[in-house]
């Protein structure tokens, strides 16, 4: 019994990974395809730059935006693919869609998760610009290791939160039902 259940768990786990990787490749091709990149990703990245510049202006950085580039007298940064939160959104979206769940739960997860990822990414862009302007020696390591890892970890945590959402309540209901049957 136990071996059967373990084998079934392994099959489900491998099935999830296969679906996750398949969706990741499909979504990657979609966002890397030039018409989609030009019509969706670049304008979206420019919007990220505008919102970030607005926040930086409130913080007194005196920034302005040219396309996907944020500039001030002290520093300039170009937001590229990999810095616009799309990479974490691809990861999160693939995991949510690959995980067995009702569509309603998936849609709620996608909506809230993608918004949360973009909020974290805005904090990343704003803080990286500030570091570049005021602590330039820390920019490279903060950009590559620290913030990329933090944003991706946020994506993974959001997925785990979503995947386990409601399971405690459901387990309690199941325990309650089993007790009543006894």
């Amino acid at each position, binding site marked *: 019994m136990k071996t059967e259940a373990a084998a079934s768990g392994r099959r489900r786990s491998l099935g999830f990974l296969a679906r996750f990787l398949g969706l990741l490749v499909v979504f990657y091709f979609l966002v890397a395809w030039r018409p989609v990149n030009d019509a969706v990703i670049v304008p979206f990245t420019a919007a990220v730059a505008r919102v970030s510049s607005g926040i930086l202006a409130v913080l007194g950085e005196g920034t302005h935006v040219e396309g996907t580039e944020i500039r001030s007298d002290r520093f300039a940064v170009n937001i590229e693919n990999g810095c616009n939160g799309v*990479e974490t959104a691809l990861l999160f979206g693939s995991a949510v869609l690959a995980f067995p769940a009702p569509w309603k739960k998936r849609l709620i997860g996608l909506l809230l998760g993608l918004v949360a990822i973009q909020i974290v990414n805005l904090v990343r862009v704003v803080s990286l610009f500030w570091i570049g302007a005021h602590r330039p020696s820390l920019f490279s390591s903060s950009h590559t290791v620290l913030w990329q890892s933090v944003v*991706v970890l946020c994506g993974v945590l959001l997925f785990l939160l979503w995947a386990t959402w409601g399971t405690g309540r459901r387990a309690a209901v199941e325990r309650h039902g089993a007790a009543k049957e006894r």
Partner: protein
Amino acid sequence: MARPKSAEAAGRLAIRVDGRSLLRLAAGFLAGLGVWLLFAAPYERAMAAAGEALLRAFEKPPVTRLEASRGEVIVDRADFPEASPRPGLPAGDLHFNFVLLCALFAMTPRPLSPGNFGRFWAAAALLWVVHVLALVVQIESVYATRLGPWSEAHYGSLARNLWAGSFHFYQIAGRFAAPFVLWWALGRPQAPPHGKS
């Protein structure tokens, strides 16, 4: 057709995102960052040596030489003109995802248990293989797209797109997905199966 129900599948996750698991994740992240900073240089040398061996295994004659130096992998070829500059590829971009792997494995309830430790090192070894393959793909994409007429003479249109696209996939999605996939396959805590033996 019956599909696994969410409650059943999610119940099998057996991981709770709470204050304690977030603390363990943060501790794992910092520990991983420390190890990564301390051992990046020897790691890059090992990665470059393995990448060079793999590239030369498929070259006729074998001409590529890789040298890890100051956070870069310098690409040299025996047939490069003496005076031409040697491309330097930032190595940290390839392997910083080791820190993500550490953070994810630390999130489990008993991160220092021998079982979790063993699975972590198995995942880290597999991640090293991913890093070597990513380095090889990056170098092939440099050969295929960044050496002007030489690239066009030696790589067809399909090969150029394949190598450049593969490395771009690693940059955008692969390097973040690799630690998650390895953790999910090897390190994720699983609930004991239902039923009695």
